[in-house]
């Protein structure tokens, strides 16, 4: 069992993305450091467009996460509605 992680610039735009991820992934841990917010999660982490839209109250294109994405780890599986990180070993 390994962690996947995803890290964003800590700003106003990424806040609802981080909130959505924390709401959707109960085992996720978030760490704030200067300018960076990193979310670690055992095995699997999913980012859902719908959850982000719930947070911001407006429509959201999932590709917008890349504006503030710094780095990530894990194998990516994505479509228009969700972006999933996992390890397949």
């Amino acid at each position, binding site marked *: 069992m390994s962690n996947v992680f995803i890290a964003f610039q800590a700003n*106003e735009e990424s*806040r*609802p993305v981080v909130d959505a991820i924390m709401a959707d992934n109960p085992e996720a841990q978030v760490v704030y*450091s*200067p300018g960076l917010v990193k979310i670690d999660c055992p095995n699997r982490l999913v980012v859902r467009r719908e959850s982000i839209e719930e947070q*911001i*109250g*407006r429509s959201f294109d999932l590709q917008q996460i890349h504006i503030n994405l710094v780095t990530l780890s894990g194998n990516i599986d994505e479509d228009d509605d969700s972006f999933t990180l996992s390890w397949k070993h």
Partner: protein
Amino acid sequence: MTSIDLQTRDIKPLRNTYTHVARYIGGDKPASRYQEATMGAQPTQNFHYRPTWDPRYELFDASRSAIKLNDWYVLKDPRQYYYATWTIARAKQQEAVESNYQFVDSRGLLNRMSDEIRATACQVLMPLRHVAWAGNMNNCFITAYGYGTALTAATMFHSMDHLGVAQYLTRLGLAVDEPGVLDAGKNDWLEDPRWQVLRRLVEDTLVLQDPMEMFVAQNLAIDGNLYPLIYGAFIDDYLTPRGGTAIAMLTSFMPEWFDETSRWVDAVCKAAAAESPENKALMSQWAKVWGERAQAALAPVAAIALGTEGEAAMAGVRETYAKRCAKVGLAV
């Protein structure tokens, strides 16, 4: 060579947000810009004087409305618009419309429309400039006399949006026809008997005194019936199949804006009605009375736009309105 040792210093802020914001979001937590722009911003006390022109009320007075709320901040905007996000969103939409104008222009799409379709479009859309102007005035009234920043800030954005719609309609008229088409529209608005019911309705809303009644009458009842009729039944379902796609392109902002703002209008109505049975009864009554007046006023307009198909369109509009009110918790 000197080596430079870079370190990051983590300086924890002593507080996360303003006290007046923390009070509303449940403690000293990081607050969003929307929360900081809205929560606790409403002046509540120590007003120097009553308005000399209406000493019945304080300068900001919740009692101007028959709606009673424990906390007017429940009327939050689900879109979480504050000035920056609203202007950026609208600027993006403006760019899209500019692009549509360029496309229509470069392909000569307006000239390829039949004279009949061009004339019908102007006949229906030009008088609506005056309806949009009233939307601007009415929402500005709510901002001026309403209580609670969550409501009044959003209605100011809404007021400016109506101005934008009016300007888009004007620009459409000038693109499709000679400037005289604007005067012809105004003339129809003032003289054509088929527009007088809507005009009377609009002018009656201009003199309403209760900001929440104004909100229901303008933003739910009038717009909630007008937009599905004009941009759905008329432009999308009638003009476009008859070669009027260019009109849909040049008015693309309006149906998009209607869908976006409906979410906010619904949230405000829902929150106000949910607070008490008295509020629900009052909001429902306003939604019913003004909704029926709006539908009666739009029936002759539907006839201008759709001829014999106007009645069926109005039936669809009525059903949509009833469903929407039910979803929001209003009994019409």
